[in-house]
């Protein structure tokens, strides 16, 4: 009897936990769709063509930068072959163990440059930083993204979630209004995607060049007529963590091709 009751309690707890996590993740794992699923077949083919994908120009540049000395060292002098980076980007942004700060890949590269290599940090959206992030992310091609929101990351995650659900701008929309509630429907000539970060940095047709996730977020903010935050602001970083958590399980596609 006692055992049966314990089992019942366990089952109830599991049920509660199940409901809680289902509520937490707005799009269930089975329905997750990468941004490439919302593209036309021509752009999808372009992304999957390792030669013609224009983002590969940046990946190739990144490969050169990887072994070029900057300051005292090059990336290759510590990390050897970039294959050692496989899987790395799939878990960013994450908490840096030494200072407890949340870092994305851009921040990590710049931290490496200024603290270990004795080189100048690279400017956000600079060709060099885009090339390096694209090259490193490329090493994790097709690996599922995952993230940890435990410990110190939790507060950033909650801040990111709040940011995601915050109504902004003249249109008074939050990210969730389009990307959770309306994905798959049309917005003028475009299909609304689920808003996942798994292909960034990506080559965007509208930009005619490569851009980071932050640039994409800024474009979204501008689209809903909201104030764009400066590059490198904490809010983008927190939002990036939330987006990665929300997209867990999707494969890395960098360099993606997007409209």
């Amino acid at each position, binding site marked *: 009897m006692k055992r049966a009751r314990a089992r019942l309690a366990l089952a109830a707890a599991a049920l509660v936990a199940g409901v809680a996590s289902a509520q937490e993740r707005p799009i269930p794992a089975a329905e997750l769709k990468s941004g490439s699923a919302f593209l036309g077949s021509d752009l999808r083919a372009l992304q999957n063509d390792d030669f013609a994908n224009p983002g590969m*120009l940046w990946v*190739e540049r990144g490969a050169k930068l990887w072994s070029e000395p900057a300051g005292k060292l090059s990336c290759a002098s510590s990390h050897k072959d970039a294959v050692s980076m496989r899987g790395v980007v799939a878990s960013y942004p994450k908490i840096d163990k030494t200072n407890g700060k949340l870092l994305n890949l851009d921040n990590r590269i710049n931290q490496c440059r200024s603290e270990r290599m004795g080189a100048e940090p690279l400017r956000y959206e600079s060709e060099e930083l885009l090339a390096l992030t694209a090259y490193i992310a490329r090493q994790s091609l097709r690996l599922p993204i995952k993230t940890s929101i435990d410990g110190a990351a939790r507060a950033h995650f909650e801040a990111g979630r709040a940011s995601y659900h915050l109504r902004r701008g003249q249109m008074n929309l939050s990210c969730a209004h389009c990307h959770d509630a309306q994905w798959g429907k049309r917005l003028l000539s475009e299909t609304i995607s689920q808003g996942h970060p798994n292909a960034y940095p990506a080559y965007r047709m509208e930009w*005619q060049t490569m851009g980071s996730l932050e640039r994409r977020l800024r474009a979204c903010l501008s689209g809903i007529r909201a104030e764009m935050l400066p590059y490198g602001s904490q809010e983008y970083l927190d939002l990036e963590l939330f987006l990665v958590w929300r997209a867990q399980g999707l494969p890395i596609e960098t360099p993606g091709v997007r409209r």
Partner: protein
Amino acid sequence: MAARIQIPREARRGDVIEVRILIQHPMETGYRHDDVGHLIKRNVINVLSCRYGGVEVFRADLSSGISANPYVQFYTVAEASGDLEFNWIDDEGQQGSERQSIVVRG
């Protein structure tokens, strides 16, 4: 100006081979304005040519209708081992070139 070329490393004589080139270039149309309202000067790659073993096998006059980072693909017949040499020039007079060799058997 970085570029990528893709041709088969080897082919048999008489084979039709696919040649692909992707060039990094902004292909500035001349119709856009910068952040302070000044017109950005047109700067596009206006000629792209390919010589195979010293003989021109392909030439294209590109213009402002071509997207940034142009990608061009064409076919030619593998006749002899040698280099495919690409040359291009933009409105500012910047030249680019890239070459790759092919081994032809038979």
